[in-house]
């Protein structure tokens, strides 16, 4: 598990910046069936004709002949012969149906967003919005720093790192602003200037903290490296 995290860090810049192309997905029905028309049908008919399943004309209209050909293909390939081109049949035929790849899954990073937002909420209620983003950014800067644990949960729950973990405030549910602050920070915003520590000068007597070089002051917090 940790290996993966280090691996991700090994390509941290990539993961942060690259993501993907504007993949153009056409809007269409979930599966292709009798009565449908379009370029996808042409591809299906062409393939099926090449393999001698389809005897009709390649016209892009899913008619009776196409349906029969699909059934025949499904039977020969161990699929349920329903005459509908769903994801499995499309894969076997070798055509790509955009609508079928569009199945949406839940964002796998959602729990990290929630945890980060809870920390922001507990640590910086009453701070300006920028101060909230900065607190979230400090956590992410720590994940990237070799001096700290290499995951969001590791950094937040590191013993002694945040008092709100010790006193249970971390379990309060975050407000909308904290959630956005967490997400904005995950999207690269860093008003802290790359800080890995912060403190409230009115509440800290820790000599170590007070000796760090301050890079930004936002609201009641001093951010330092």
């Amino acid at each position, binding site marked *: 598990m940790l290996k993966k995290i280090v*691996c991700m860090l090994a*390509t*941290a810049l990539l993961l942060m910046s690259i993501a993907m192309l504007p993949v153009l997905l056409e809007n269409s029905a979930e599966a292709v069936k009798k009565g449908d028309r379009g370029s996808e049908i042409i591809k299906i008919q062409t393939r099926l004709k090449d393999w001698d399943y389809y005897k009709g004309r390649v016209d892009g209209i899913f008619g009776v002949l196409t349906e029969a050909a699909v059934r025949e293909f499904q039977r020969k390939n161990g699929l349920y012969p329903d005459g509908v081109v769903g994801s499995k049949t499309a894969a076997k035929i070798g055509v790509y149906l955009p609508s079928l790849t569009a199945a949406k899954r839940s964002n796998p990073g959602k729990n990290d967003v929630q945890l980060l937002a809870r920390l922001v909420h507990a640590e910086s209620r009453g701070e300006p919005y920028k101060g909230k983003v900065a607190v979230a950014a400090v956590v992410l800067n720590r994940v990237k720093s070799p001096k700290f644990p290499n995951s969001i949960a590791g950094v937040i729950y590191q013993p002694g790192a945040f008092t709100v973990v010790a006193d249970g405030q971390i379990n309060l549910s975050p407000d909308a602003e904290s959630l956005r602050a967490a997400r904005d920070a995950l999207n690269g915003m860093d008003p802290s200037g790359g800080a890995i520590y912060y403190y409230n000068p009115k509440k800290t007597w820790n000599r170590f903290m007070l000796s760090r070089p301050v*890079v930004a002051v936002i609201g009641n917090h001093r951010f330092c490296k």
Partner: protein
Amino acid sequence: MSKWKRWVLPSLCIMLGLFFIGAVVWGVLQTNEKESYIRRVQSVYDSAFGQMCNGVSNLEDKLSKLLVASGTSMGQTNLLLMDAWHEAGGTEHMMSELPVSQAATAGLTRFINQVGDYCYMLARKISMGGSMDQNDVNQLATLTDECKKISTELDDIRASGGLQWALTSNEYYALSADGPHAAGQLEKTVEDYPTLLYDGPFSDSSENKKPKLMPENDVSLDEAKTIALNAIRTPGTTLTKSDELEGTVPCWSLQGTLGDGRRVEISVTKKGGYVMMMTVQSSDTQGSTTPSDEVLDDLGKKAVAYLDSIGYKSMSPSFSQYYDGLVVVSCVYTENDVLIYPDMVKVWFDLQSGLPAGVEAHGYIYNHTSRTFSAPKVTQDMAIGDLGTRMQIEGVRLAVIPTPGLKEKLCYEVLGIRDEEMYMVYIDAETGVEEQIFRILNTDEGKLAM
């Protein structure tokens, strides 16, 4: 009176006595329970400490074997490097569980993380056709010695009965080298460990990265305000200076309110007057509607035009995410149809008003520079090779991607589909080596590359 003496007083005494006995019993039970919790917590810490000690000793074992391995991908080298990386990761993980002050353990944590990172980067280099050089061998020898030293000291701590763990947060903060919870070897400073020279995300060069975009012209506070107002786009906006951010990219920080009362915060670089960061309070935080592909397409075009008007030229829209009534469009600098991924600027749009609601230009400011890339030695067909047998290829184009150690590489970006999942494979345009693979997840908050 006699009734009082005979009945009430004795029964009061009995009640008090019962209370007293009850309190004692309760107290004893509570103390026992507390002690059992303390023992349990301490055994978790002891276990983490024990595993950490084993980790360091295993790490030393792998590193010393590496010194006699061939140094090529043909033999044991890569396996040992991956083992060392794995041991370093586990050791770091166990260390982060220990209740000792982060300030005290930062040196050791950084050392272990860098050793793991270095081994991973070496394995990566070798698996892509490179080999270990004399410098690598020397560094591995130094690391082996250091690990041996750490391992011996840790063993001594364990032999002398282990460490006494701080159990409350006040105790962590009170930690000092000569305090009751002194942790010996755990408490050396960064300077006490050997310096590692290599390229990786945890290397010193990555820790101290500097912006490549270095414009000369100074921007005054008034000019910064004009730039900010142009970027905010909403009439009736008032802005005041909130603070000045020094550090690697000095900025004017401004804050204020829009005509409709929403707050805005914006930073403009003191050199060149680039909008480094902007955030506008969203008008609809409940917005959970998923924007249609047409809307996203349209916002992509709007983002490019908007960036052009605030000084980020020749950008093209890449992917977009959506949450809380906002859409974030990531735009990538494009030169001669080559996507330059490191030079990225993100633009937030308020879905309700369609107005820009945020900018994040860290990537662009840190990476943008004039680049010269020699023409690809590998042709597109050579790059694709037999990839078509493993996925259905949907498109190929050239792109510059960031590689570890703040470097860049010109690659062919091959987009393909396998089992209904989308992948992006990057092939080095110089060597034809597979540089990176991304899987694109189509999530309920937009597309994500993993």
